[in-house]
C-alpha cells in the first residue's frame, strides 16, 4: 500500500516520488503515515476506505452506558470508537431571577483534562473546549429538549438548576457529537431525588409541592437533538472523523437534527472546501440516518437500565 508515493497535494522529497518503487518501497507503512499523512490518506480515499478501514459514510461503533457516576443525579458514559465522554448532572436548588421566576436553568460546561490528548497541557486549556461548551449549551437551549418550566419547584422562590459537566476522557475526533449524546443520555437518566425544599417563612418541614417528596421523577425530554459531524475533503464526505483524519481534513460540517426532523443547527466554521447545496443536503441525509441509529442505541441502554433496576 505504501509502495507508490503519489503527489497527493503535498510536497514530497524526490526520494519519495522519483524512484518509482525504489526508495519508497523500503519505507515502512508507519513511517510513510507519519511523514506524508495527506498522501497516505488520499491513497485510502481512492479505494473508498478510510484509515481505519471504514467505508466513507459509516460512523464508528457507539456505546452508551448510563448511571456510572453514583453520586450524580444523572450520568452517562459514551464511546464513539475511541472517543470517550463522561457526562454528569447535579441538581441544586436555586432562587430563580425575577424575569424568569417560573423557570429553572441548565449550566453546561465541557472540560478537556490533559488525560484526553497529548496536545492538551495542564494549566492551558484546549482551545476547542469553551467553543464546544458554548455550542452544546446553544443546541440544548434552541432544541427545546428541556422545558425549563419543568424545573420550577415553587414559583418565584425555588427552582432546580442542573449543572451538566462533560469530561472528555479520550479525544479521538467528533468531540461535539459524543458530548451531545452524553449530555442527552445523562438527561434521560436524570432523576430528581426527592429532596425536601423548605422556604424561609413557611411552615417547616412541609413544602408546597408534594411532588418533591414523592417518587423520584424523571425529567421529561422532548425534541431530543442528535448531531453528526462530516469532514469534507475534495469531493469526499467522511462521516465521524477520527483525530488523525481531523488533522488532515480542514473542513467540517456539523448538522444537528431533532426528533421532529427540524434542523437545530448547521455549523460549518470556515474551511477551504465550499459547501454547495448538494453537499449540505447529503450531510443532512446522513445526519438523519445517524440520528435514528443513535436514538435506537439510547433507547436500548435506557431499557437495559430499567431491567437492571427492577431485577
Amino acid at each position, binding site marked *: 500500500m505504501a509502495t507508490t508515493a503519489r503527489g497527493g497535494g503535498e510536497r514530497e522529497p524526490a526520494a519519495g516520488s522519483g524512484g518509482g518503487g525504489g526508495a519508497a518501497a523500503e519505507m515502512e507503512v508507519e513511517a510513510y503515515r507519519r511523514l506524508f499523512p495527506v498522501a497516505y490518506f488520499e491513497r485510502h480515499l481512492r479505494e473508498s476506505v478510510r484509515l481505519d478501514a471504514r467505508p466513507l459514510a459509516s460512523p464508528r461503533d457507539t456505546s452508551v452506558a448510563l448511571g456510572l457516576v453514583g453520586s450524580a443525579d444523572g450520568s452517562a458514559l459514551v464511546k464513539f470508537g475511541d472517543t470517550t465522554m463522561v457526562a454528569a448532572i447535579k441538581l441544586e436548588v436555586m432562587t430563580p431571577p425575577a424575569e424568569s421566576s417560573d423557570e429553572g436553568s441548565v449550566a453546561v460546561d465541557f472540560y478537556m483534562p490533559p488525560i484526553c490528548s497529548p496536545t492538551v497541557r495542564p494549566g492551558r486549556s484546549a482551545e476547542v473546549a469553551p467553543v464546544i461548551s458554548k*455550542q452544546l449549551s446553544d443546541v440544548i437551549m434552541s432544541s427545546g429538549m428541556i422545558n425549563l418550566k419543568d424545573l420550577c419547584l415553587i414559583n418565584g422562590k425555588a427552582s432546580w438548576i442542573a449543572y451538566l459537566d462533560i469530561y472528555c476522557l479520550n479525544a479521538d475526533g467528533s468531540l461535539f457529537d459524543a458530548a451531545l449524546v452524553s449530555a442527552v443520555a445523562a438527561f434521560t437518566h436524570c432523576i430528581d431525588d426527592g429532596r425536601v425544599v423548605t422556604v424561609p417563612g413557611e411552615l417547616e418541614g412541609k413544602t408546597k409541592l408534594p411532588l418533591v417528596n414523592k417518587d423520584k421523577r424523571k425529567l421529561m425530554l422532548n425534541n431530543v437533538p442528535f448531531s453528526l459531524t462530516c469532514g469534507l475533503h475534495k469531493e469526499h464526505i467522511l462521516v465521524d472523523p477520527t483525530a488523525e483524519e481531523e488533522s488532515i481534513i480542514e473542513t467540517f460540517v456539523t448538522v444537528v437534527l431533532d426528533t421532529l426532523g427540524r434542523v437545530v443547527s448547521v*455549523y*460549518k466554521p*470556515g474551511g477551504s472546501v465550499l459547501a454547495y447545496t*448538494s*453537499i*449540505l443536503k447529503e450531510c443532512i441525509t446522513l445526519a438523519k440516518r445517524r440520528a435514528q441509529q443513535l436514538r435506537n442505541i439510547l433507547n436500548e441502554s435506557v431499557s437495559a437500565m430499567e431491567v437492571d433496576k427492577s431485577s
Partner: protein
Amino acid sequence: FPVVEGVSIHNRFTNLKAPTLILNPSVPNLPRASEKPFASSPPTPPTPPLRSPSSSGALRNPSKHLLEKEKVSESRVSNLSQLALLWILPPYCLLSNWAGMRAMGMDRLDGRNANQMRPLTCSRNLLHRAHGSARWSQGDTIVLAAVYGPKAGTRKGDDPEKASIEVIWKPKTGQIGKQEKEYEMILKRTLQSICLLTSHPNTTTSVIVQVVGDDGSLLPCAINASCAALVDAGIPLKHLAVAICCGLSETGSVILDPTKVEEQKMQAFMHLVFPNSPLAVLPEGSSSKHDEPFEHGIITSVTHGAMPERGYFNCLDRGRAASAAISEFLRRSLQKDGS
C-alpha cells in the same frame, strides 16, 4: 414590489472625520427589482478602469498605505444608477416572502422591508500603527478590525509550513468569555480559508476585532471588517468573503440583516459567509463538478434556533442573493481607494 434598499451615500465633500450617512429609501428613478430577470448577470455598470493591476481586491502594495496615511478613505456610491445594487431575487421568492409578510401584517420596526439591509459603510486605513485596518458598520452594529502583518514564527502546535492567523476578539463591554472564544474560532477558520497560507510559511498574522456597537448581525459585520482589513494590509488572499445574517420567522418568511430585537423574536437566525463572486477569471475545478457557480458555496454557516429544513435552504437562497449585492459594494469600496 418596490424593493429598495438603503446604501450609504457619502457626499464627496464630506468632512473626512465625520462621515454623514444618508439613507435614501425612495430614489425615484430606481428600477424595480422584480423587473430584472434572475438569471441575468449583475446589472452594474462596467467597473472603472483599474490603474494598478493589483486592484482585483486580492493584492495591494503594502507600502502604498504609508504614502496615503493622511487620507482616510471612505466608500461612496457616486452614481445613482449604481444604486441598482439590486436584490437579484427569484421572483417567486420575493412573492412568497412579500405575501407572507403582508399576511402577517409584519413590518420591521425600522421601516425596512424583508429584503432590505441596513446602510453599509466601510472605511479603511483608520489606524496608523496597524498594518491594515477597517471599520465596517451595518446600521448600529459597528466593528473595527486591525491586522498586524506577518510576524515571524507560529505558535507551538501550528503547522510551520503554513502561515497561521490569530484572532483576538474584544467585546464592547464585559469580560472575555465563551462567546468571544467561539467568535474567535469561527473568524479564524473563516479567514484561514480565504488567505493564501502557503505564501508566507511560518508566520503569524494577527487580526484584532473590536466591537464598537452591537445591534444584531455582529459576526457577519466582524467578518466583513476583517476581510477589508486584510486587504488593507496587503495580505495575499484567494478571494474575498462576504457575510450576511438572515432571520427566519415562524411563518417561514426570511428577513435580512435583523437587529438585536428582531433576532430575539425570530424562530431562528443564521450567519452565512459566501465567497466574493469572481469577475474576471472563471474558476476551474469547483464549478464544473457541482452545478452551482462558485459563489454559491458556503464558507461558513452558524445557526441559532431550530428551523425546518426547507426554511434553512430558503435562507441560504436569500443570503446568496444578498451576498452578491454586498460583494459588489465591497469590491467598489476597495477599488475606489486603491489608487
